[in-house]
């Protein structure tokens, strides 16, 4: 498990231990990765983050069109593995969690401990101002630095 922010580590470790999730990705609503567990290639993380952020944006717009509030979570059930995508509020802005899990656990368990992790993240987040928005000219440098921190290379 790798995280860009140290205060994310404990809540995420607890979630991973309790939920038995295979892969987990925490990212901002713009798709910037905050923490990951289980991914071995940076390309997979970048792709999953981009697709996850896009899906959440689409479903939130769909909810708005239907006159509903935001959807809590989106779950794709598969025979061998399933995927849950959920957006949540943190003191650092809106984040997205992408969790892949197998038949060794259940969507109920994953949702239960995911909600607990969200509460723990809210309590653990530092109260100082979040970093300034990333500028386009710094994007590649920031992205490379983030991937290096997450994969150690």
């Amino acid at each position: 498990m790798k995280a860009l922010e140290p205060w994310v580590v404990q809540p995420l470790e607890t979630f991973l231990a309790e939920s038995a999730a295979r892969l987990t990705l925490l990212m901002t609503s713009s798709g910037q990765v905050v923490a990951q567990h289980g991914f071995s290639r940076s390309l997979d993380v970048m792709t999953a983050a981009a697709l996850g952020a896009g899906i959440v944006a689409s479903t939130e717009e769909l909810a708005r069109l239907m006159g509903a509030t935001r959807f809590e979570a989106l779950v794709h059930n598969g025979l061998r593995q399933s995927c849950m995508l959920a957006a949540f509020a943190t003191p650092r802005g809106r984040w997205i969690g992408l969790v892949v899990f197998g038949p060794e656990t259940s969507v109920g368990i994953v949702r239960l401990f995911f909600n607990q992790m969200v509460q723990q993240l809210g309590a653990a987040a530092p109260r100082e101002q979040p970093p300034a928005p990333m500028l386009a000219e710094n994007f590649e440098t920031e992205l490379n630095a983030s991937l290096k921190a997450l994969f150690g290379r």
Partner: protein
Amino acid sequence: MTATHTALDRVTRVPGVRGALVVAAADGLVVAEQLMDGVDGQAAAALTGSLVGRLARTAESAGMRPPAFVHLRSDSGGILAALGPDELVLVAVIGPDANVGLARLEMLDAASRLG
């Protein structure tokens, strides 16, 4: 009234029962619930669904049939679970003074009518 709500009514009428749920065992999600304030239905469904699933797999590994009834006891009460058809589980959250014998009879009969 549906079979699910009839089952919940029968179980929650037993003295000492603090709430009852019908849970989809494979998903650990609540299908229907009748709970007193302070009982977390989502947590009860997820954890009981997981427990029942693991017990069923354990029994199968030992060459036995899945358990029909599970009683998890603690100092301050307990959890009862009766397996029904279609991977549904009837769950009761009980206090320490609950009539467990009556709850068990009601749950086994009600669970067989689920689905």
